[in-house]
């Protein structure tokens, strides 16, 4: 079973003119637990849309979306929020930590409104990422690499199935970027599917698989289906059923 899977996913935005903008064009994409996939492609190719659709921030116009084998194509707003919280971790280029919260509070943010206190677990996670001595620092007191580590810890607080990263090394120097990618390798070893959208060749080096998105069309979206990815839609169902066995 894939951690996350898109089948024939199409995303159209109403454009300024008569023609809608096609951001994703019949995309088949699947990532297994413990796999690190890098999505590359030029700007405007639909990478962010792909990440938003995978991350349940946006819905595909057509096609299916599965999370751990469960159809999550059409959920209510509340259900989507709950599913994001439960199964998806986000890491952003700009880190997006809340400036008023300390490192440990930022990590615990997804659980902040829950009955239990997850701060101990958040502290453990930060310690794992080598920030055990920065627990009560605010983001403004942390370096870029430290902030991104806090963001990764936040993404992992609910033990997600999928970690989605949008240019995770975009604002970091090469050395720090490498250390962050090393963290991703540790994360995937715990069975989390890691998907990173990137321009950075360094990320491609660390990835198990690199897929390219160009004008909304994805090549090599499902491992072992590279031949059919740009093939006819008619045999898609057959390959989809076969895919798990092929691995």
């Amino acid at each position, binding site marked *: 079973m894939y951690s996350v899977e898109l089948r024939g996913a199409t995303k159209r935005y109403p454009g300024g003119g008569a023609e809608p903008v096609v951001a994703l064009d019949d995309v088949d994409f699947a990532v297994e637990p413990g796999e690190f996939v890098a999505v590359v492609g030029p700007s405007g190719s639909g990478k962010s849309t792909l990440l938003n659709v995978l991350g349940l*921030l946006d819905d595909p116009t057509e096609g299916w979306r599965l999370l751990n084998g469960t159809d999550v194509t059409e959920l209510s707003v509340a259900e989507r929020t709950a599913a994001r919280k439960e199964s998806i971790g986000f890491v952003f280029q700009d880190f*997006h930590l809340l400036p008023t919260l300390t490192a440990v509070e930022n990590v615990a943010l*997804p659980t902040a409104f829950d009955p239990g206190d997850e701060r101990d677990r958040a502290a453990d996670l930060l310690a794992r990422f080598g920030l055990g001595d920065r627990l009560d620092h605010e983001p403004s007191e942390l370096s870029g690499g430290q902030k991104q580590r806090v963001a990764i810890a936040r993404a992992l607080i609910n033990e997600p199935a999928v970690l989605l990263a949008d240019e995770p090394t975009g604002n970091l120097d090469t050395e720090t970027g490498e250390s962050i990618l090393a963290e991703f390798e540790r994360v995937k070893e715990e069975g989390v599917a890691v998907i990173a959208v990137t321009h950075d060749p360094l990320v491609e080096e660390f990835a198990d698989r690199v897929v390219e998105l160009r004008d909304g069309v994805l090549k090599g979206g499902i491992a072992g289906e590279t031949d059919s990815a740009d093939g006819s839609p008619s045999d898609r169902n057959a390959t989809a059923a076969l895919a798990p066995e092929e691995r």
Partner: protein
Amino acid sequence: MSDGSSDGTASDDSSDGTASGRGVTGWLRGWRPAVSMASRNLRRNRVRTVLAVLGVCIGVLAVAALGIFGNVLALGADDAIGDIGTQVVVSPNADAGVESLSAADVAAIRRAVDDPAVGDPAVVPLYSDSAVVEGASSQTFATVYGVEEPGLAFEAAEGRLPDRHRQGAIVGAGVAEDLGVGAGDTVGIAGTQVRVVAVLAESQTFSPVAPDDAVFLPESAFSADGYAQALVVAESGETARAAADAIREDVNAREERVDLFELAAIVDEINEFFDLLSTFLLGLGAISLVVAGVSILNVMLMSTVERRQEIGVMRAVGVTRRDVLRVLLAEAGLIGAAGAAAGTLLTVLLVAGLVAATPAVDAALVIDPTNGYYLLLALGFGVGVGLVSGAYPAWKAANERPVEALRS
């Protein structure tokens, strides 16, 4: 695939069930992190927060202070004119040919008001005449009343009012001052020297009897065959009105023998006026509170626009719309509560300062418990204005799609 979707709904249903099962404690628990995050967000832009708090503070101050001023005015007026309404003056109805009140009329009046429901007021019949009253060195023109039981209607400032007035004169405060006489002196009334047994306390009430400018003699000094009027002295305005109604019903049943002069109706109108004044003052205050509400609205809109991405991140990592709404409402509520608390405190200080600086204001009127009501009202309004003005920006921010918010 259909199996998968039904699993999804089933688990959602069960999580909803536990959420509602947590009840009030769960609801309260959700607010604690919200308030904590809200207070930190407010500390971020201190100047803006302080200005918004100041706005509410001034609004609350205006509502509370103007409300209390209006109330103190009304209480003060009530205090000053309160006794007016407690007297009913019964006089013969000259239009019906009744020239004076007979002993039978007085008895009828006594019977009419002899009822616990009316408060059993005292009935004091008065003979009336006028005469020149002479002191040692001056003289004045005064009303001369004949009264048997002056103690029921009047109070002495000097000397003692006899239970039964048998001899001597009781002098009103104004007359005593004009003539420079006190208890024990003698005054000349219509040529006869009479000893002053008592001087009345200055009258606090307005009454057609005008005791300040009168001299009271025993009934025996009069040879008239009827009383000029009868005073009905009640405990309160309410019982006075009841007494007047009872007299109208009983004594005037067959013919309109008596005229009634009661001030309770006037007191009612005066009270109505002060109620109107209080409402007007409160309305003035409310305008400033509305302005404060607009400033909170402005602050909250600005701050949610600035923090659009942050709110988007919260939503993306799984914070529900309801919890985002809570954080933002808590921010607006905290501004409102802080402003309201400060405004209430300032009002107390302001009123206390004014009382200290203005000897004319009776402190007892200011610590009247009804003023507390205006303080509470303003406090509640302050917090309410915060929540109401925070509601729209909070709702707007919480319902924005995270994908849009993150894009900016």
